[in-house]
């Protein structure tokens, strides 16, 4: 039943541009949903499953995006190689910085991740020679064509973003249903007990930090490739907080959570056509209400098949 539903939804999402021909605005919004959902998947693995509340998550998306941008524009590397290297750079910096952050726990961990997020933002904003500074990094190419499929047209970029998002969700599903994922959940529930059972907590937590950061990097690269420009503001503290909110509103620790969260965060205000500050007021209030009355997020409100 659930599998059939998932299949229908996937087919519908792919068929949408043909069904709703002549609505570039809708496709545009859906692309944005995808590029917001991808980093949220990475954060969901860290926050929802391993219990690591990182307040600097989008900075790692920024590392991926800027690394890919420099490789493509300055080193004249092709898009797909730059994508792979950018994701690797985000993952590697996630491992390195995560190893430092994870020496701290609970509140301390949050503050240290926040501090690293701000430091990375400051580098993106000020290292003019490499990142082009506060003005943003212009001229980022759209993905190189695959065979005869060019990603210049909006509709084709949508297919790419959707595929990337589905891939991220597939990775999340694989991880959560594996021994590795179960170990992460055990660490979240009782780290001492898990450690006593022989789990190397530091190794597991660092690896999920790296994995989450790499997935964030993928989202960041697609985001800047879609906008054709990388701006530091896409990866600042406010965006990192938004990523936490997307995960929590959607339902931290649920497979569909990031998709629901991104849909609500990007899609709802576009639908309601409200001014930006009111959208964030509504979103913030929704978040507080959810935390107070439905701590499992929107995904938790949907009755599950098995009880």
């Amino acid at each position: 039943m659930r599998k059939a539903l998932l299949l229908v939804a996937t087919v519908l999402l792919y068929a949408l541009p043909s069904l709703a021909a002549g609505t570039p605005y809708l496709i545009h919004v859906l692309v944005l949903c995808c590029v917001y959902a991808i980093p949220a998947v990475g954060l969901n693995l860290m926050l929802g499953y391993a219990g690591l509340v990182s307040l600097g998550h989008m900075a790692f998306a920024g590392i991926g995006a800027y690394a890919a941008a420099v490789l493509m524009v300055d080193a004249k590397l092709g898009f797909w190689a730059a994508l792979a290297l950018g994701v690797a750079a985000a993952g590697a910096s996630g491992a390195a910085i995560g190893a430092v952050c994870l020496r701290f726990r609970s509140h301390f961990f949050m503050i240290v991740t926040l501090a690293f997020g701000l430091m990375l933002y400051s580098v993106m904003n000020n290292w003019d020679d490499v990142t082009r500074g506060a003005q943003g990094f212009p001229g980022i190419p759209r993905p190189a064509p695959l065979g005869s499929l060019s990603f210049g047209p909006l509709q084709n970029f949508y297919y790419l973003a959707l595929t990337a998002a589905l891939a991220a969700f597939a990775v999340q599903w694989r991880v959560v249903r594996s021994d590795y994922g179960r170990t992460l959940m055990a660490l979240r529930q009782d780290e001492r007990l898990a450690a006593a059972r022989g789990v190397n907590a530091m190794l597991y937590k660092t690896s999920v930090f790296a994995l989450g950061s790499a997935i964030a990097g993928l989202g960041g690269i697609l985001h800047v490739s879609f906008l054709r420009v990388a701006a530091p503001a896409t990866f600042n503290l406010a965006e990192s907080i938004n990523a936490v909110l997307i995960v929590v509103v959607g339902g931290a620790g649920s497979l569909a959570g990031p998709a629901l969260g991104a849909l609500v965060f990007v899609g709802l205000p576009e639908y309601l056509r409200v001014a930006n500050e009111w959208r964030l007021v509504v979103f913030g209030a929704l978040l507080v209400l959810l935390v107070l009355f439905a701590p499992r997020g929107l995904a938790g409100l949907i009755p599950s098949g098995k009880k």
Partner: protein
Amino acid sequence: MPAAVLEQTINGLMSGSVYVLVALGMVLIYGVMHVLNFAHGVLFMLGGYVCHFFFTRVTGSYALSVLLSMGVLALVGIALERGVFRPLHGNLRNQVIASLGLILVIENLVVAVWGPNALQMKVPATEQLVPLGALRFPLQHLLVILVTFAVVAALFLFLKFSKPGTAIRAASQDRLAAMVVGIPVERIDWTTFALGTALAALGGALIGPLFLVFPLMGDAPMVKGLAGILLGGMGSVPGAVIGGLLIGVVESLSTLVLPTDYRDSVAFVVMVLILLARPQGIFGVRVRGED
């Protein structure tokens, strides 16, 4: 002392004082309720706006506006404690997430009401210059430092000798034991919250005339205040004072040797390095967040 060093030291003490006011509020609230309120920065900002409102619309007296702003923010603090943080008692993660939601709500409500542009507050003390050695500083700079020191001294006396102050210390040392000896901890909770948000409002109201009142004015003081708290030792009130001042002076002096663009990062580099070497901070009570 060369003039540049003196200038940056005074600047550092001034911004450090503001960090201290933010840090004190957060550390008191953390001590008593174990809540890390990330919305403290936007409450600081709201304090600046409320002070601006009273100063320009209601009364021409700056001192009175500052006090009124503290009073209003104390009420906001009580409302938040009652409505949001008390129901989430004991759930660290959800309290933090709720405070992130409050950032969005408060910050964007302020933008909706007052607009996104910075507002000016023309207070006479910003125009008046005071000679100090070879340099002259605006009186407001020194006022920020002096008021903060006075408030810190008063707070120490309050916590040390008064009955409610002793009760706050008792509740933060051991909540259960405090209940057993008959301390009304729930009343202590909202009192502490009101005190903390009033201190944040004081910070916003003091800095407003110098650096304008704008929606993001609380972000830097909040994160620097957090860095100060961690540096001083989480849960330690003297630690928050020393840590906040240290961050202010170090980042200000760093501009003498480093590009000013990286001024904000200096505080965090210092914080992370010190914490790695000495995880409990200078006056540490808790180690690396383990409770």
